């Protein structure tokens, strides 16, 4: 059994380094049970924070402390209302049989897509519908797409766990496993974990089996880095040769990483740093363009180096403090705009054909043309506008 499972906390008192979150979670459950009688209060709880800070664990602890079963939904279950009903039906019916109460858990809500399917609105529908408490975990609740959730839910932040707490936990595990390790190694595992206690325990378990753990080179370890951490390393840290390889460990295409960097540069940098960082990002894009046009893939090396080391070294020294990194918003905005302007384009096209001008010119002068068409129903007939187009005009 992996240690991460074996030593997963079962009670509130076992949860380490999250005292504030635990207090708030208990309070939420108490209020929920009261709210059942009074029909007031919030029915859903969001646990958010970086990976490995104990979000899912805390959800399970809440369940076991309130003698409830966990009923877990994932993002794909939330794709449509009918499916959701089907899944929830047994959960609601079984209640009378087992007498055990339930907690509905939606793990990793960051994965819910809002663009193509209404996952988020289904989730809100679920919250309105449910008689059970809903617990949602997410890395970043401040992501714009999750904003409708924020009004409906109680939000609890789980912080990165400080390395001393992690060290204590690691020592405890070793004691229970009756193993001994050089304290320096334990401390360095705890520091390298950067607040991610799950990573620390996993590392500890892998190191404990080695005959001579002191030979391990922690810097060379190639663990998967999630994008939020990658942003932190780039923007906060001092660039070194590990920085160059950072994006190899991020499970995301480099084109997407470029969008993340683009979105978040102004969150950390200003003035000269801002200009420097964007200048490097612009060179990243130039190399990207050259790769596309010439199919010369070696340019990827420069693209990657400028994007990692280049962006990181645009600052003097290091940055401190907590920054909430945002997901790239530009692609979504472009998509939404295209939806909006599709009708404008189709009207402009009909108009252009009719009056012998280019479509581009018709679009450029659309505000004037729109007023003409809008105010004259005969012209609308003349251009054979369909209902959707008329609706757009009169909006």
């Amino acid at each position, binding site marked *: 059994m992996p240690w991460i499972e074996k030593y997963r906390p079962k009670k509130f008192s076992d949860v380490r380094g999250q005292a504030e979150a635990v207090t708030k979670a208990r309070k939420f459950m108490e209020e929920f049970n009261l709210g059942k009688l009074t029909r007031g209060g919030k029915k859903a709880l969001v646990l958010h924070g970086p990976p490995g800070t104990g979000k899912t664990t805390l959800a399970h602890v809440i369940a076991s402390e309130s003698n409830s079963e966990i009923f877990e939904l994932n993002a794909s279950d939330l794709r449509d209302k009918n499916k959701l009903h089907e899944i929830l039906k047994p959960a609601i019916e079984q209640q009378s049989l087992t007498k055990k109460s339930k907690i509905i858990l939606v793990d990793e809500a960051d994965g819910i897509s809002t663009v193509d399917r209404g996952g988020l609105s289904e989730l809100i529908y679920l919250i309105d519908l449910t008689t059970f408490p809903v617990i949602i975990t997410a890395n970043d609740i401040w992501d714009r797409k999750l904003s409708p959730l924020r009004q409906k839910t109680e939000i609890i932040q789980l912080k990165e766990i400080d390395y001393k707490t992690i060290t204590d936990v690691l020592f405890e595990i070793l004691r229970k496993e009756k193993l001994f390790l050089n304290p320096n190694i334990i401390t360095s595992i705890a520091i390298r974990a950067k607040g991610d206690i799950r990573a620390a325990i996993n590392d500890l378990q892998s190191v404990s089996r080695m005959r001579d753990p002191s030979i391990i080179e922690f810097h060379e370890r190639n663990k998967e880095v999630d994008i939020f951490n990658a942003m932190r390393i780039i923007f906060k840290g001092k660039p070194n040769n590990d920085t160059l390889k950072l994006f190899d460990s991020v499970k995301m295409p480099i084109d997407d990483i470029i969008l993340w960097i683009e979105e978040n540069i102004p969150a950390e940098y200003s003035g000269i740093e801002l200009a420097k*960082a964007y200048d490097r990002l612009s060179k990243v894009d*130039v190399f990207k363009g050259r790769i596309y046009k010439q199919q010369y893939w070696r340019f990827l090396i420069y693209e990657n180096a400028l994007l990692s080391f280049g962006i990181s070294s645009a600052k003097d020294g290091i940055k401190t403090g907590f920054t909430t990194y945002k997901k790239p918003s530009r692609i979504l905005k472009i998509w939404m705009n295209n939806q909006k302007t599709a009708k404008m384009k189709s009207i402009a096209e009909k108009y252009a054909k009719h009056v*012998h001008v*280019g479509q581009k010119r018709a679009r*450029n002068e659309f505000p004037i043309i729109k007023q*003409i068409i809008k105010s004259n129903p005969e012209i609308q007939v003349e251009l054979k506008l369909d209902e959707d187009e008329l609706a757009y005009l009169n909006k």
Partner: protein
Amino acid sequence: MTSKIWTEHYRPSKFSELVGQDEIVQRIESLTNSLNIPHLLLAGPAGTGKSTLALIVVKELFGDNWRESYLELNASDERGINVVREKVKNFARTKALGQVPFKIIFLDEADALTPEAQQALRRTMENYSATCRFILSCNYSSKIIDPIQSRCAIFRFKLLEKKDIEKVIKKISESENLTVTPGAMEILYEGSEGDCRRSINLLQSTASISPSINENLISTVISNAKPKDIKVVLDYALAGDFLRAREKLLDVMLKESISGQDVIKSIQKEIWNLPVEPEIKVKLTEKTGEAEFRIVEGSDPFIQLQALLASFVLAGLGKG
């Protein structure tokens, strides 16, 4: 059926009605009367009568059945030269009816074609020269490759003068029962920038609000229709608010659906009006040129524009 859109309804249908291009009209009219015209290249600014003249030629030649012998294409709307060639091929396959031994293909905005595409067009023109005449229109004849220019009779359209636009507006307002004050006429001309189509559209747009057209009314219509200014974006950047500058820029680009290169063009013009030192203007111009170069080389214009905005932020701090 006559159109309710004034640019169509009042489009001249005889040579004598066309304003401001007397010399061109005379030459083309005599060509048309001879029933044998060469390929024509009509060059000049928007709204000076190029399409209208082409339509008049066609109507004079073919009479009421002109639609059967006429193909109108817009180079910037068609997806590539191959689509153009395909359409030309289908159209040119059948012979012209009646006494005129050819059909007419009008290719608007021919300068939107790349030089390579124009080479392909040249071959097409040669292949179908027995059955078709081409009328090409463009804003700048310098963007048309020499081999095509040498195959065409070239006509340069002048920007319309104030008296020309006034004549058109007066004619329309009389038959539509509008009153246009002299001040409004002035603004209408300025707002049209010598583009007759634009002046008529402005007039109809304003007339849809009220038949008595004064300065204020027309100014309101014009300013509502103006694209959101790139200047606002630069003002935010110079004031150090990068995030708002970026947001506004994306907004403007999406709403007006303008390309990165178009934005660069307006930025480059706007620099000279900015409240910064001459030395910084030069530096910003250089940065802008570099950004344009990188847009051409790169893949994502918006990233290049952000980098440029960051330079403006620096300039605003006096560190450009």
